[in-house]
């Protein structure tokens, strides 16, 4: 029996070391989220949806605004509409000792809306995603995430590493910024935009619009972050067709955000008005070049409002 246990344990230890080596090589190429769940606690955060994940470059904001180590902790509308799950995840990500952090809270009508079928008693759509299910968001390698929430086979961790910019269309930088490189010719862009508008038109039918639950958690998130530094409420630009859908979803969204900003004594930077100045991959996500310009413009607005 002792021999059996010894041999089995030795084999298992070697095997676990092999598993660990694979997990340890996971990085920004693994998937669009892993890196954000495997970075240390942060003192300054960008939170919100995929528009912010791709559209706000922390390094640019840092250099223009003067903040340091801003970290992009935005995901997608599936996982991170404002709610308990995202609130908990943000609170785990934030270094609680921070006193003078900078926080960009990206908002758009989808982030404070709810599906027709959702309700507090039945649970919300993000409750089944990694944002709610990952207890440890600061571990590297984050084995919990890789075991429970990584949707591909583990070989993809190794396979994706050498594919950046070729087969691989995304890359998460060390500061959490999600760089997405897709075909930038007019035809591809127009097809993607058309499809996106079509899918959002369809999506609109399943939404019941403004959610008091989500609004409550947006204000809760703001209160939480305010205790650790300056908070900026930001709406990113989208094309007119997308804006029209969002106006149908929530006509008075900007007034609502303005009211929140006034109530919480912070600034609401609505960049929708400058939507013609930027270029989009699909009508709602900024291209890499536009993300760079937008981040600079946003940082300038933030700096102006601070003064």
């Amino acid at each position: 029996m002792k021999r059996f246990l010894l041999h089995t344990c030795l084999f298992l230890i070697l095997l676990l070391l092999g598993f660990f080596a694979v997990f340890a090589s996971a990085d920004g190429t693994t998937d669009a989220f892993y890196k954000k769940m495997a970075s240390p606690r942060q003192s300054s955060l960008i939170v919100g949806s995929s528009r912010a994940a791709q559209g706000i470059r922390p390094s640019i904001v840092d250099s223009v605004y003067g903040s340091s180590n801003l970290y992009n902790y935005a995901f997608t509308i599936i996982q991170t509409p404002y709610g308990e799950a995202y609130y908990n995840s943000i609170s785990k990500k934030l270094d609680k000792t921070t006193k003078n952090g900078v926080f960009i809270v990206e908002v758009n009508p989808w982030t404070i809306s709810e599906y027709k079928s959702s309700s507090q008693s039945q649970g919300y759509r993000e409750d089944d995603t990694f944002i709610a299910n990952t207890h440890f968001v600061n571990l590297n390698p984050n084995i919990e995430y890789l075991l429970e929430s990584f949707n591909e086979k583990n070989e993809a961790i190794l396979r994706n590493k050498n594919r950046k910019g070729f087969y691989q269309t995304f890359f998460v930088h060390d500061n959490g910024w999600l760089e997405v490189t897709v075909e930038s010719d007019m035809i591809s862009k127009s097809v993607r935009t058309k499809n996106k508008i079509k899918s959002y038109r369809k999506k609109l039918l399943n939404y019941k619009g403004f959610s008091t639950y989500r609004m409550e958690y947006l204000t809760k998130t703001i209160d939480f972050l305010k205790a650790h530094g300056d908070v900026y409420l930001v709406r990113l630009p989208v094309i007119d067709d997308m804006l029209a859908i969002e106006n149908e979803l929530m006509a008075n969204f900007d007034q609502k955000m303005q009211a929140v900003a006034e109530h919480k004594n912070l600034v609401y930077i609505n960049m929708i008005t400058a939507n013609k100045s930027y270029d989009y991959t699909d009508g709602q996500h900024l291209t890499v070049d536009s993300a760079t310009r937008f981040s600079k413009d946003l940082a300038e607005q933030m700096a102006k409002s601070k003064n």
Partner: protein
Amino acid sequence: MLFNSLDFAIFLPIIFICYWFLAHKQLKHQNVLIVVASYVFYGWWDWRFLALILFSTLVDYAVGRGLSRYDNARKRKLLLWTSIIVNLGFLGFFKYYNFFLENFIQAFSFFGQDIPSNSLNIILPVGISFYTFQTLSYTIDVYKQRLKPTKDFMAFAAFVSFFPQLVAGPIERASNLLPQFYANRNFNYTKAIDGLRQILWGLFKKMVIADNCAYFANTIFENYETYSASTLVLGAVFFAFQIYGDFSGYSDIAIGTSRLFGFDLKRNFATPYFSRDIAEFWRRWHISLSTWFRDYLYIPLGGSKGSIGNQVRNVFIIFIVSGFWHGANWTFIVWGALNALYFLPLLLRNKNRVHTNVVAQNSTWPSFKEFTQMLITFGLTVIAWIFFRAENVTMAFDYISRMANMSLFSLPQVRPTDLLLFLLVFILVEWAGRRNLFAIERLWLAYPKPVRLSIYYGIAMLIFLFGGKAQEFIYFQF
């Protein structure tokens, strides 16, 4: 609790340590531990259904005790029927109630009679078809006086609920498994290592072969109208490997796990896709179920004796009942009937026992004739699997009809290189190990230990890297 889950990876070592270190001094303690572990294992899915197993155990134990007390034929028959009605009653209610109801309603509405539907939202208890058949074999064998009824309730409860084979077999006979709960079990290094090897191979079959095939088979079956004939053929082949990898993989893990605890379960699969005719296939596929039906249904009906009419009837009964055992759907019934049609010509020409040995017993490769026979048998099996996998019979016929056009000679639209490579290696390893109880049982034993361990390490890493995300075992739904 799934065998391919983290829960089981934690559960198994804990039970193993408790079994050999804490409970090893007394057989009774070991049996109690097995019962407790088995109930935890089963309750992990839904603890409410533990009551069903417990009730089934109590009824069959009491019936067994009753049969030992009475010589009166009427009383004995009454006891037997009590067990049959209770066990098949549960199975019938949980598995077949809605099927019969829906079909009755459809039949009546065909004659212009509209009946309101009162179908129930019934959850099928995991593994009910397996443990029901296992306990039935006990009462039938005791009734027929082939087996002495047990007095040891704990041993009987352990036999009914033994966790490695509780939810998807092999369906053990009481005559094989129950006595093992009476005998002292001593740890055997070789047996345990063998068990680990079998678990490893089972996990490879399930996670690398079955789960990856499942992904493509599901894609193709769910969108079959959009694919070329050659892709549909590939989809059906993927499903054939999915179901084999899934089910035989489960059996390997079950048998391997049992060996860790000192038990020997019966072999359930014997490289069935290397069969040279359909009769051989059925001697090698899901052996524990086939032999159960043979012993408790086919032979009592008269088997292959009697008039040709009776033989044909018996073959159809056994195959259709076997199909229906798999699920309450016409697809399974047609699958069973189709296999009966494949089997009948062999039986009627008295050629159903031609291939009783392993193919290419004394050679490395099969002869051309054997290879052709294997290919034809596999082809027939794949066609039958389409009924098994399809949502309904209409879809199955449509799927098959779409396989017969000129696009059959085009390149399939789905060509997963990794998977095809894995299948090729898998077939070669299974071929090389076809004479063993499981493919890698003695395959590399001639190699030095470090080489052998490196191979096992490689297999484990392949499972880790290429294993599909944990999917339930197909046979859990049966």
